[in-house]
């Protein structure tokens, strides 16, 4: 050992000695504070660390975190709204999360349903969501319900939860969820989104309403109801709505809203032109609301006395006589003949893919054409109408045949069947 090494060793020992003396001194004067209070029955060390960043926010605090841990939340629909909502609710440490969805993951879901991955295509969405949440946060208990919510099973499920998120996609489920939650006396955090816009609301807060029927007493006519499949939706738009739903859920559970400060509202998020959120005030329950006034009861619903499907209506697509329609195979034989193929889809659809030599007049524009000359094609030829699935094309043929006394025929099953039966290389979307 050289002189230098001995010097270093000495210095090290001197520093250690100093540290130990200080420690002893502070122990003597009782300055070590026993800050760790053993209320650890509430949280594990992992949970303290995991939730620390949200517990130090005054709006949440450790008391709020305990409420989240004790909360039981039901998410109906694990799609465009449900996925982002579930991600944040799982991360936030909700004690128990139930997920109802009978649908399986499809590749067309993945641009917006962010917790499903390509390798989960074909699996139940609720199971895919469960495996993701389990990996994200092992402290959350996840219960899955891989079947459709119905008048028969809704009460049994709802009664096990404190709050429900409506992340569904049809008027049928919107009315059913609102009715059952109102009768079960639990609040609904409700969101929806289409194209570039979304809506957000809290229904039946503290059983003072309003409920979905207070906002929309009459279901919209079925032909005005557009789904994401038909109308499209931009991923971040529906994603934002789901994230906003997660925050409203946290606020309700933590107790940020009270009877005194809660003002019933409906917010609309617009993604275009400039992003904006507008919030509209609602007075409260409507005096003549069938659910809030108690006219719709658990017995009435479970007995099946309300036919939700009928109440919301179905679109009647049988508007043509058999001789006004042809099959995709029949049309395939006529492709080379001199005819007009009228594609009635919206222009954005037509742009993605269309059959060669087809003419595009979207159904809504077609219905505004009042004279034969303005059709823009030779109406003396044989005319065939086509669309994506063969629904709108029936309305197009009905309109043309009635208004202009033509003999157009619609092609059954549309471009979907063309891809399915004639040309497998023709893209579907």
């Amino acid at each position: 050992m050289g002189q230098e090494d001995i010097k270093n060793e000495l210095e090290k020992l001197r520093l250690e000695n100093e540290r130990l003396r200080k420690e002893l001194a502070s122990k003597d004067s009782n300055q070590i504070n026993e800050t760790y209070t053993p209320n650890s029955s509430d949280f594990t060390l992992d949970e303290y660390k995991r939730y620390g960043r949200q517990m130090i926010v005054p709006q949440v605090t450790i008391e709020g975190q305990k409420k989240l841990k004790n909360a039981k939340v039901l998410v109906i629909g694990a799609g465009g709204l449900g996925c982002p909502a579930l991600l944040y609710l799982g991360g936030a440490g909700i004690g128990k999360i139930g997920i109802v969805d009978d649908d399986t993951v499809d590749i067309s879901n993945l641009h917006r349903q962010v917790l499903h991955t390509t390798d989960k295509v074909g699996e139940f969405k609720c199971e895919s969501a469960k495996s993701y949440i389990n990996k994200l946060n092992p402290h959350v208990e996840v219960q899955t319900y891989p079947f459709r919510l119905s008048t028969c099973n809704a009460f049994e499920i709802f009664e096990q939860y404190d709050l429900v998120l409506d992340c569904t996609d049809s008027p049928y489920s919107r009315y059913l969820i609102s009715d059952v939650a109102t009768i079960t006396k639990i609040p609904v955090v409700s969101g929806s989104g289409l194209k570039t816009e979304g809506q957000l609301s809290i229904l039946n807060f503290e059983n003072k309403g309003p409920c979905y029927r207070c906002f929309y007493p009459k279901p919209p006519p079925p032909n005005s109801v557009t789904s994401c499949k038909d109308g499209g939706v931009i991923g971040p738009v529906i994603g934002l709505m789901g994230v906003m739903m997660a925050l409203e859920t946290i606020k309700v559970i933590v107790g940020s809203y009270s009877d005194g400060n809660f003002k019933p509202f409906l917010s609309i998020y617009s993604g275009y032109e400039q992003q904006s959120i507008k919030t509209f005030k609602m007075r409260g329950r409507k005096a003549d609301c069938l659910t809030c006034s108690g006219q719709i009861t658990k017995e009435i619903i479970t007995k099946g006395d309300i036919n939700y499907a009928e109440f919301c209506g179905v679109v009647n697509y049988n508007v043509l006589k058999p001789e006004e329609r042809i099959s995709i195979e029949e049309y395939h034989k006529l492709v080379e003949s001199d005819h007009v193929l009228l594609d009635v889809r919206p222009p954005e659809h037509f742009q993605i893919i269309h059959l060669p030599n087809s003419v595009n007049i979207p159904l809504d524009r077609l219905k505004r054409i009042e004279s034969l000359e303005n059709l823009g094609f030779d109406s003396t030829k044989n005319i065939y109408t086509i669309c994506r699935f063969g629904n709108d094309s029936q309305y197009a043929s009905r309109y043309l045949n009635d208004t202009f006394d033509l003999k157009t025929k619609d092609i059954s099953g549309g471009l979907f069947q063309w891809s399915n039966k004639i040309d497998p290389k023709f893209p579907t979307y």
Partner: protein
Amino acid sequence: MVTIEYFGPSKDFTNKSIESIQITSLLQLYEYLEIQYTKEFSEYVKENCGITVDYEYIDKELGVEFNEGDEICIIPPVSSG
């Protein structure tokens, strides 16, 4: 003049999101929508949509009068998600 702002599916009928028109009551709004657009749209707004004046829902059953400069919004149900 009042401004009318259309949200969601109601824009499919109007092809615009906002316009200023000269009306003074809810009844006149329904009439305007029928003449300018279609009877179907007017009925849709009357039966199925929420209507707000200055960001507050109105009770459509009551005869509502509008004031100069009111901001009226048409809020249709959107069920998809």
